[in-house]
């Protein structure tokens, strides 16, 4: 067969690229990183890239907990409103939004606040489009009768937004509680990032971080 050497070469190069890509999934060496960089047009272009594919499902590390995003408008209520799902689901749509909540949280931990705030802007803007932001009493339909007494100038909303992480309870603790019939208190969620969201024109939202990077949370925000 005339093309056998060429096909063999293509197979070898392809399999080598796959091995390099897969080897980078755990903890790549400098050589692996360099090889991945050289091969990245092929690996990224055709999605053979395995760097961030979580084939392990969980490693049981701190960052594996449940992440979600909450907002509140203190002029409406002091309660936090959760805008990303916190219940399990087989739906890919649910995975996507939870993935974004986790990504935003991890980025703040990595001090990549600019990227994290971009994601938060998108999530809040989408909530606003869908009419899911906290609503003042005066904006409700039944208050329209009193419109004359209201200030008609559009007011820009300000929200508080936070990224929260639920740590995982120790299994031994649960087993011990089951043994003695005790009821455990719910685990407190950890606030990883706090920011202020200010509404701009045309559903633009500006996010101003209120907490320092690396989990420094302003006093009283928990």
């Amino acid at each position, binding site marked *: 067969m005339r093309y056998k050497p060429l096909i063999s070469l293509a197979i070898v190069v392809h399999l080598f690229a796959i091995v390099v890509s897969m080897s980078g999934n755990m903890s790549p060496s400098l050589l692996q990183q360099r090889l991945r960089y050289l091969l990245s047009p092929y690996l990224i272009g055709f999605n053979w890239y395995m760097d961030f594919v979580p084939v392990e499902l969980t490693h049981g590390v701190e960052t594996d907990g449940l992440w979600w995003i909450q907002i509140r408008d203190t002029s409406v209520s002091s309660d936090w409103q959760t805008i990303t799902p916190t219940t399990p689901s087989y739906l890919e749509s649910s995975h996507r939004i939870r993935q974004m909540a986790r990504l935003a949280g991890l980025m703040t931990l990595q001090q990549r606040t600019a990227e994290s705030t971009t994601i938060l*802007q998108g999530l809040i803007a989408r909530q606003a489009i869908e009419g899911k932001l906290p609503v003042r009493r005066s904006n409700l339909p039944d208050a329209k009768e009193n419109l004359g007494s209201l200030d008609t100038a559009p007011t820009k909303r300000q929200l508080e937004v936070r990224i929260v992480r639920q740590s995982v309870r120790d299994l031994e603790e649960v087993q011990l509680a089951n043994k003695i019939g005790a009821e455990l208190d719910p685990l407190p969620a950890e606030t990883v990032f706090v920011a202020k969201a200010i509404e701009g024109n045309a559903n633009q939202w500006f996010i101003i971080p209120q907490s320092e990077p690396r989990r420094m949370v302003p006093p009283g925000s928990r």
Partner: protein
Amino acid sequence: MTLQQLWDKFWFTSIDPKPLGIMRICWSILTIAYIASWMVDIQIWLAGDGILSNPRMAELLQSAADEQSVWLRISPLYWLQAEWQLVGYLLFGVLLSLVAAAGVGGRLSAVSAWLFVLTFIHRAPMLSGLCEPLLTLGWGYLSIHSGKEQNLFRLGIHDSQPSLAANIALRLFQVHLFAWIILSVASQCGGLVWWQGEAVWWLASEARSPALSLSWLGRNPYALNALTHGVLATQLAALFMLWPLDTRKYGVMALWLACGLLILISDQLLYPIALGLLGLSYWFAKGEGRREKGVRSEE
């Protein structure tokens, strides 16, 4: 037998392309399921006012550490902003998948389906999960063989000629699946929770186990350990049994059992199904000694 003869025997032997035809149909169905998952929320993410609108994606990609990856992210989805355009694009994807399943267009339809899936990954790489790599590798390897002889309308017909391209594609499927399972097992063994039998507890605590409740797992620690170790054990069993011809079918069954356990313990559905479908590359492949009837040596 020399190394070259072994290489030639492994890669350059013509085989019946029927397994590829079946996998092509399965991949088409899987792609339609993937598209259906986007139908629910495509406008939420990718529309002009979506969470990952073009300006926001540009910001996210610009701040990515690897600048090389930015210019590789080419996708027509960047130009589609309105909801009807995005839904139209999804319907176009369904059509492409059906055409590929019907064997119309040969390699072209498989390449088109491959590119279609890639456009979603390049448009929003941060939304890509476990299923997408398997979808793209499947279409990539299916593009090697034309798929005209075996398709949705010719499943029961056995008149296809042995094909060298079909063998190369099937071998790539097998090798890639094997490497994937090795990676999966190695990666899981890198975490202490998989050794301690507590990985399922972690998944349930992260609200990633729709089928299992935390309270039930807390009351049944042995079941929790058995489920965690079961996932590892079935994958290891598949690794050892997939290549020997005598145990191949048991290996595929072990893989399917692992996929079933993955559905039970995690919130993944498309990923275990795709992994299980990859197992067909072993299930339908006949052994070297058993396929002499259909073999036509290229030498």
